[in-house]
């Protein structure tokens, strides 16, 4: 379970446009790493490059190394599909599959990959995953209802249950709370605190209080100007970032003297 990710000299491109430049970072296992920074600075792009979701977009490509437990994820013999099975992802907007029930949504990762499972095993997996996502008590009586019948916060937790049901090593979360109300946000933050016992979690957030509340490590991304590539300005323990950052730019951003 939970693995360390080493990123070295990572450049990320959209066609000819360099979106992110020269990222070197080590993401610790069994902890939460938060990525903060202004809009358009490449946080989400960087996150998507960690499980090779970036290259799904036409023209997008990556240079550099992302090493998980000694294996380069961008090695020529690595199948991106396998990478994504090990590194799960939760998106900004809840996106349960509209054609599937709550039950089917949770086991979608197995169903879609045609993993044959016994009915009792899938029942256990659904219950375990939904409990892991703090959703079991709310939906246990209506597992056959469509996933889209849930509220936004419940849908997002359903997506988290779906992501952890395939037992990944790492969980990437791209602004998972930005479309949610404070109560649902709290539920998901509590959930992250539980999940970090089992997974390596990387979260992109615009909410600095959230980064300060949940994460152990924080990375600050910034860009010099429009059309310039984004860079990782500072990567430090969260306490240090929010109390005594090394860089002036970080301090400006955190104290709100920026953008």
């Amino acid at each position, binding site marked *: 379970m939970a693995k360390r990710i080493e990123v070295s000299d990572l450049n990320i491109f959209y066609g000819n446009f360099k979106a992110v430049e020269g990222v070197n970072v080590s993401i610790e296992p069994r902890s939460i790493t938060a990525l903060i920074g202004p809009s358009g600075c490449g946080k989400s792009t960087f996150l998507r490059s960690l499980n090779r979701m970036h290259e799904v977009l036409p023209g997008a490509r990556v240079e550099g190394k992302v090493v998980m437990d000694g294996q380069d994820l961008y090695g020529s013999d690595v199948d991106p599909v396998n990478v994504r099975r090990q590194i799960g*992802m939760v998106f900004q907007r809840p996106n349960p599959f509209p054609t599937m029930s709550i039950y089917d949504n949770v086991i979608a990762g197995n169903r*879609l990959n045609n993993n044959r499972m016994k009915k009792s095993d899938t029942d256990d997996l659904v219950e375990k995953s939904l409990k892991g996502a703090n959703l079991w008590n709310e939906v246990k009586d209506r597992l056959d209802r*469509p996933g889209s019948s849930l509220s936004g916060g419940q849908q997002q937790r359903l997506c988290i249950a779906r992501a952890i049901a395939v037992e990944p090593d790492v969980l990437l979360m791209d602004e998972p709370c930005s479309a949610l109300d404070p109560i649902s946000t709290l539920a998901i933050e509590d959930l992250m605190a539980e999940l970090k016992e089992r997974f390596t979690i990387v979260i992109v957030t615009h909410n600095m209080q959230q980064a300060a509340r949940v994460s152990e490590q924080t990375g600050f991304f910034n860009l010099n100007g429009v059309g310039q590539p984004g860079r990782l300005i500072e990567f430090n323990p969260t306490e240090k970032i929010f109390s005594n950052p090394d860089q002036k730019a970080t301090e400006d951003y955190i104290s709100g003297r920026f953008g």
Partner: protein
Amino acid sequence: MSTTTQLRPTSSPGQDPVRVERRLPRFAPLGLFLAGIALGAGLSALTGFSVTSTVIYGVILGTLAVYVASRAVEGRRKATDRLVTSLVTTAFGIAMVPLVSLVYTVLDRGLARLDADFFSASMFRVVGEGGGAYHAIIGTLVITALATVISVPIGLLTAIYLVEYGTGRLKKAITFFVDVMTGIPSIVAGLFAFALFTLLFGNSFRAGVMGAVALSVLMIPVVVRSCEEVLKLVPNELREASYALGVPKWRTVVKVVLPTAIAGLGTGITLSVARVIGETAPLLITVGLITGTNLNPFDGRMATLPVFAYYQLTQPGTATQAFLDRAWTAALVLIVFVMALNILARLISRFFAPKTGR
């Protein structure tokens, strides 16, 4: 017209923060419009009464009456609103005229022969009255079904390629040629199928499959277009959600994209069937017409409803009225088929749409 001066009582203007506008009473515009029509009827009567001139004079006078009254009472903005409302409604009315007229005429003349015989008898050894279009109905169903079997896989897979896989020049070229195909005159499609089968099987070859191929040429671009639009509507987030679970692309397409779009795909395909079921020209030159029933689309001529109607109309025998009646009934049956397909399309889009459960 004295009703125009009736005003809604205004509440005390000093206290009300929203200024109460003077408005025409609720049914005044309709009354004015009808008064205009009545005036138009009178005007028409002066020059020898006719329905057409009544409607034309009436609509113009009615619209003017509503506009002028509204302008005087309600002011310019409301008057413009009423004018445009009248124009839009008139345009809608004009658009409905051919539809209603067509349905009425076909019903009026087609109902005469809409009997059990029409659906159970063929024209085999019939030269006068009696007979039916059993052979043509069967032929239309067989040939259209065959055309669907050919077109849907090609069209659907092309659409999937264009939306999910295609990039660069090949995609642009395919899109361009599909657009070109959409504009192919149906007679050209018929000539293409005729030439193709003549080259392959010789001069005297005739079979239903020729018509099916000709119809496919017309149907494929419609299927591609409609399926492409529907597949584009599937949110990219669902594809990404699937990829992020470690699902390969082809499985994502088969198990996430297609099920999500199934309602739209079904609707689009059904409408494309409705589009070709009434084609006459390509079937006229490929499968021709016979009087008996031929169930085998791979050997011999077949009868189809449009071609049947065409020949009944253009080559009536001695009992002219019987032939004309059969032509109209064939047209009626064809319209019913198309309507049934449209209703089917609506049902598909209703029952297969992803359920929100709210």
